[in-house]
């Protein structure tokens, strides 16, 4: 049977592309670490943990949004096209987004502990919105795991994927306004060009890394679902009246 898939799909599915992607991510991470360790000005390094952690916090914050946005995109496209692959895209994006969110929360909490001596700061709108976002997307994954019928599962998850994303800006505004008003001091002086460049490079590196994860999860899920589909079709053929 000749391979009927289009050229880009065949290239992306080839093992070599995974290896290349992985090597790229690895190289990026090393160079990122090198930049953090050597390039950014020494003055701010005195903040120690709260400073170093920032370069891991910021890229994960942005990437959390990117992948939750990916989940929104997949959900909308699934609702329009009804193609299972958009559901898989949305689901895997949510998984990777939740992972990035965990890194975001963990680095945020470490930072909070170092800077303000509390693990958690209820009135930091960014930390709180991230946590509420995480709760919402953990709910999304619970929903995906909790429905057996495939069409129902995909549709309902997509609907919730849209609602979940719509809520994010409202959550952020509400917590900014109604959180307690004992604002802890914020870190300043992060505008040195080397810092800006390094943190945006970090965003790119983590994006590459998480895209690798996304591809891996997607290909696993595709295989599983295709096998299930095939088994389903075989069973229906066997049961059908001749």
């Amino acid at each position, binding site marked *: 049977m000749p391979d009927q898939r289009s050229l880009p799909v065949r290239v992306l599915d080839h093992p070599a592309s995974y290896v290349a992607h992985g090597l790229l991510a690895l190289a990026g991470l090393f160079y990122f670490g090198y930049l953090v360790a050597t390039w950014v000005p020494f003055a701010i390094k005195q903040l120690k943990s709260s400073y170093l952690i920032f370069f891991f916090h910021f890229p994960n914050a942005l990437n959390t949004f990117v992948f939750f946005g990916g989940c929104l995109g997949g959900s909308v496209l699934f*609702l329009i096209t009804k193609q299972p692959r958009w559901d898989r895209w949305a689901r895997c994006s949510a998984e990777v987004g939740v992972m990035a969110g965990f890194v975001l929360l963990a680095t945020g909490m470490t930072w909070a502990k170092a800077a303000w001596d509390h693990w958690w700061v209820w009135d930091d709108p960014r930390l709180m919105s991230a946590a*509420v976002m995480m*709760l*919402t997307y953990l*709910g*999304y994954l*619970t*929903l995906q795991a*909790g*429905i057996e*019928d495939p*069409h*129902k599962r*995909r*549709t*309902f998850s*997509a*609907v*919730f994927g*849209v*609602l*979940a994303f*719509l*809520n994010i800006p*409202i*959550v952020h*505004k*509400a*917590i900014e*306004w*109604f*959180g307690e008003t004992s604002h802890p001091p914020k870190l300043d002086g992060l505008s040195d060009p080397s810092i800006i460049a390094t943190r945006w490079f970090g965003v790119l590196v983590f994006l590459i890394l998480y895209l690798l994860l996304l591809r891996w999860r997607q290909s696993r899920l595709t295989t599983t679902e295709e096998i299930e589909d095939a088994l389903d079709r075989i069973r229906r053929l066997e049961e059908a009246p001749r």
Partner: protein
Amino acid sequence: MNPLRAYFSLVRWDWAREWKRKETLIAMAMMSLITLFIFSVAMPPVQEVLEDTRGGILWVTFVLAGTVGIDRAFRGDGDGRLLTGLLLSPVGRGTVYYARITSTMLGVVLMEAMTLGLFMLLFDQSLEWEGLLVVVGVTLAATLGFVAVGVILSAMTWSLRGGDAILRILLFPLLIPLLSAAVHATNEAFAGRPIGFQPVAVIGAFDLVFIGAGQLLFEFVVDGTETGT
């Protein structure tokens, strides 16, 4: 059929059904009573503490008891005939959605009125007329958003195994901005202060976004349900 007439007849039909058995109303009222008592046991019902907790007690009670009603918005007799029947009727799905929001909200608001009265009586709280107006207005506006998003989720979860827990797991995180605005406004009103623009903005935005999205998405939920069962 004229959508507006269809809407009113759906709401009337819902209410005739619920009013006959009152099962959901009674369950909501019981949950509200019990929640108020649990709070009085779990947190000291003395004035100094209540000044910080009254809005929270009231709204957590509203949400916990209201969710009982929302959970049942599509359950009907428990076998799904309700939603199927609604969809077979010659009525647009937007109309079904709004009718369902309306009749669910009627029940929830009745429960909230009872809860508010009882709360003020039992916890010895009082409100000026303006404060009462603010609390009523905020409650109505926030309940609209609560029910609008709850109804969509209820339409998705009622047929699932463990659906009542899933409904709560999906619904409560979405409600957090609404809750924080409503709690803030309620506390200000009880303290006799003006609530300002911010809670109104958050609650208004929540209502608009989720009613709009809800109407659009209800269509898809219905499609998912139809092929699913």
